[in-house]
């Protein structure tokens, strides 16, 4: 719970500055050198900005749009706004003018604090449509020398005005800070929906502070953490890690020199606490692998050898199985020769805790970093939950779950399979959109829009978007995409389409991977003439049957999903092809189209027949069409009874 004396971020900042006045609060790489600002400087800078805003007539409840790369000045501007009882509204710095205009207008922003000319230009345009925007304050004056607009003001000028204002009103700042209360609106974060206009998620000081504190307690964060603030300030995650948690613990936030230097800056800072979406983990891995392939063969062999060992050891550790003495010795050697140097080179040598969030990460990718000794964990959350809902606990990590709910957070799965949560971090509502708020919050429970299940250890697993879920005829939840992804995890399966909505059980239409299965067949001396021929070989059916059984067995561990096991399957006689409109160019299955085109096959899956004759139109590369006739076999899959250990 909150200490009544420090129930808002400005009060908290004052206390942190008192507690750790000389500790570095924020660093910024400028002109090639890391420039540090202590907590007392942090608060003083914010104070001058606040007083400058006050001199311009800032009133309680006013909104400040904040736009730019992660910069100390912009974090100070957020704190300054909150100190005056105002609400910062961070915007994505790469938004186009239209998007900015919508948000600036919708939020009724009176002030904007921006990084440089690029943002000034955009906001000057926005201002023509949003006359409510009275002042645009910029940090970097480059290129702005000849701008004459009266609404423009440099941050230095603003702070100078603040100094003068303070002479006349010495107690103003402290008085305004004291007027803040825990349940005041602290920030509005606009989230871009996939459809329609962005929604402004309103979070209070209490939302963010309690959530930050709960995560800090679970994760054991201290004031000695170093984080790199490089993800957009408008993203709830950055606000939580680089602002809220930093203010609560007093740890140091580091702002990189520019977006292009993040990886180099990462190495220089060596953060102890780091967060990245899967695509960044992926791109770091790619960079590493390219450099390994460029190394001399002896180094390359050594790295591959030890990486394979690390994966094996990590798999046993995750399964909580003992690691053999030999492997343990080798792993220690690998630590000296490969893992340690590699971590160091990536700037991950000091990481105690790292998170991946934002979207699903592939288990291999996560496993790679973990096997190297980087403690990467999955986090689940959304802006509406003050960024955090669940985090995997240290020593209790599974590659395919998002961990257990944080202290203070309750999560349940409703009858529709959707994840609902209730926590002190639950947002106040959407700004000026009570209809959307009412749709999302029901009796204090928030609809996440995600479908999930709890496994037997209480770990939450996100399965799909809730609206993509189907149901079997008896009402059992049926997540087609989830099953398909599990099937495609097998190297032998290239595509899969699962059917089951309003049917008695789940079935699958499977495309084999010609390369992998062809190779497998050759090694076993199985002759085949074509894709169609190979797909219908009984040996191949047996191979895929085992893969389906693997998927079914894995579902046993996933609560209600055990009922969605695949009972029957067939191997398609042709590859699903975007030219035939069966999948999109980005390889998304076009479920409806396939349902019609392969109706005969699907009927056969449910009729009990063991084979079916088909004719299919195919479009060749040159645009001609032809017909493929084939007899497709149908096989039962091995299903497992729930509750029985595999």
């Amino acid at each position, binding site marked *: 719970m909150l200490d009544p004396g420090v129930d808002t971020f400005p009060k908290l900042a004052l206390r942190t500055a008192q507690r750790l006045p000389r500790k570095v609060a924020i660093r910024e790489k400028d002109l*090639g*050198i890391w420039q540090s600002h202590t907590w007392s400087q942090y608060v003083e800078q914010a104070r001058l900005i606040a007083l400058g805003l006050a001199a311009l007539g800032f009133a309680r409840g006013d909104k400040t749009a904040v736009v730019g790369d992660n910069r100390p000045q912009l974090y100070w501007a957020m704190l300054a706004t909150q100190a005056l009882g105002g609400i910062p509204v961070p915007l994505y710095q790469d938004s186009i003018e239209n998007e900015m205009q919508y948000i600036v207008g919708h939020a009724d922003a009176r002030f904007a604090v921006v990084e440089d000319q690029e943002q000034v230009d955009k906001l000057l345009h926005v201002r023509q449509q949003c006359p409510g925007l009275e002042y645009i304050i910029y940090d970097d004056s480059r290129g702005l020398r*000849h701008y004459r607009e009266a609404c423009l003001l440099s941050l230095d000028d603003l702070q100078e005005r603040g100094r003068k204002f303070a002479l006349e009103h010495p107690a103003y700042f402290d008085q305004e800070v004291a007027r803040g209360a825990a349940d005041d609106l602290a920030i509005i974060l606009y989230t871009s929906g996939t459809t329609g206009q962005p929604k402004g998620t309103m979070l209070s000081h209490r939302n963010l502070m309690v959530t930050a504190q709960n995560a800090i307690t679970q994760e054991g964060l201290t004031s000695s953490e170093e984080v790199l603030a490089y993800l957009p300030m408008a993203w709830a995650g950055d606000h939580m890690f680089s602002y809220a948690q930093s203010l609560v613990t007093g740890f140091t936030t580091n702002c990189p*020199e*520019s977006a292009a230097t993040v990886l180099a800056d990462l190495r220089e800072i060596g953060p102890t606490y780091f967060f990245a979406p899967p695509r960044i983990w992926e791109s770091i891995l790619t960079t590493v692998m390219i450099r390994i392939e460029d190394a001399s063969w002896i180094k390359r062999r050594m790295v591959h050898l030890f990486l394979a060992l690390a994966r094996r050891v990590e798999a046993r550790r995750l399964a909580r199985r003992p690691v053999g003495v030999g492997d343990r010795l080798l792993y220690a050697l690998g630590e000296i020769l490969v893992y340690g140097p590699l971590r160091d080179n990536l700037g991950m040598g000091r990481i105690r805790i790292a998170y991946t969030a934002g979207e699903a990460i592939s288990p291999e990718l996560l496993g790679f970093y973990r096997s190297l000794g980087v403690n990467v964990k999955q986090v689940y959350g959304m802006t509406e939950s003050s960024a955090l809902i669940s985090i995997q606990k240290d020593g209790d990590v599974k590659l395919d779950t998002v961990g257990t709910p944080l202290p203070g957070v309750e999560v349940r799965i409703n009858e529709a399979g959707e994840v609902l949560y209730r926590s002190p971090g639950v947002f106040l509502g959407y700004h000026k959109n009570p209809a959307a708020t009412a749709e999302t919050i029901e009796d204090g429970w928030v609809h996440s829009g995600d479908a999930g299940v709890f496994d037997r250890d209480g770990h939450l697993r996100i399965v799909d978007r809730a609206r993509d879920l189907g149901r079997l005829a008896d009402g059992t939840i049926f997540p087609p995409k989830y099953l398909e992804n599990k099937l495609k995890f097998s190297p032998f399966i290239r595509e899969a389409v699962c059917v089951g909505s309003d049917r008695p059980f789940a079935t699958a239409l499977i495309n084999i991977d010609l390369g992998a299965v062809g190779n497998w067949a050759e090694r076993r001396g199985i002759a085949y003439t074509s894709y169609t021929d190979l797909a219908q070989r009984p040996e191949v059916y047996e191979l895929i049957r085992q893969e389906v059984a693997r998927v079914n067995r894995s579902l046993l561990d996933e609560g209600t999903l055990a009922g969605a096991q695949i009972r029957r399957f067939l191997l398609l006689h042709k590859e699903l092809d975007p030219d035939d409109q069966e999948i999109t160019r980005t390889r998304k299955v076009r479920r409806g189209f396939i349902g019609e085109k392969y109706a005969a096959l699907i009927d056969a899956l449910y009729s009990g027949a063991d084979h079916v004759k088909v004719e299919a139109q195919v479009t060749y590369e040159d645009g001609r069409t032809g017909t493929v006739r084939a007899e497709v076999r149908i096989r039962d899959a091995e299903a497992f009874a729930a509750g029985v250990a595999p």
Partner: protein
Amino acid sequence: MSQAGAPLLEVDRVSVRFGAVQALDQVSLAIRRGEIIAIIGPNGAGKTTLLNVISGFYRPTEGRIRFEGRDRTDLAPYDVAALGIARTFQNVALFKGMSVLDNIMTGRLLKMKGSFLLDALYWGPAKAQELEHRAFVERIIDFLEIQAIRKTPAGRLPYGLQKRVELARALAAEPTLLLLDEPMAGMNVEEKEDMCRFILDVNEEFGTTIALIEHDMSVVMDISDHVAALDYGRKIADGTPDEVRRDQAVIDAYLGVSHV
């Protein structure tokens, strides 16, 4: 933008002959302080020769050149550079094996007061001097947004970035007059836009007078205050971008009228 001040550099009836080739023929041109002047003309018109004469690479066969009111026709290139004229080259001329930072530092050489012994020991004034120059170079790196390649060997950079590094090196000399020989040649549209913005920013922030050779007419019309057109070594037009664009002699030179 156009702060048409006193002439910074005057080229007075300059001719350059290479054997039988008349590269420049009685060309006169005044570059005013603070302006961006574009020198245009078809291939072989004498644009680069003019730049080379200004920067002291060539000595004119006839005519005089005055910089800040003083005659400097006979100075060697390094003396010209010391006066405050820096240039970039049509073909990038960087030290390919050196880092971007070191390349730009070479632009500061003229500003450094060397003492062999102290420099070798990296002690006292030598160290202070190095720090001061490094700080200046860092401001240019920041200005041209090349932080991410600070330590990359120049030879490994894509062409557009090499051009930008060359500009950075020229700026490191704190020039009064900056000569750019086709700064945007071989660039894609996005790189050109970036380069235009940097040229305008340099002019605006540092007040540097800029003379550039450029073929892309839309670029020329966008960024220059003053355009001079050359053809067959003679100046055929001189004025604002609009005036030059409408000039019949320029149109003829570009569209190709038969010269008998």
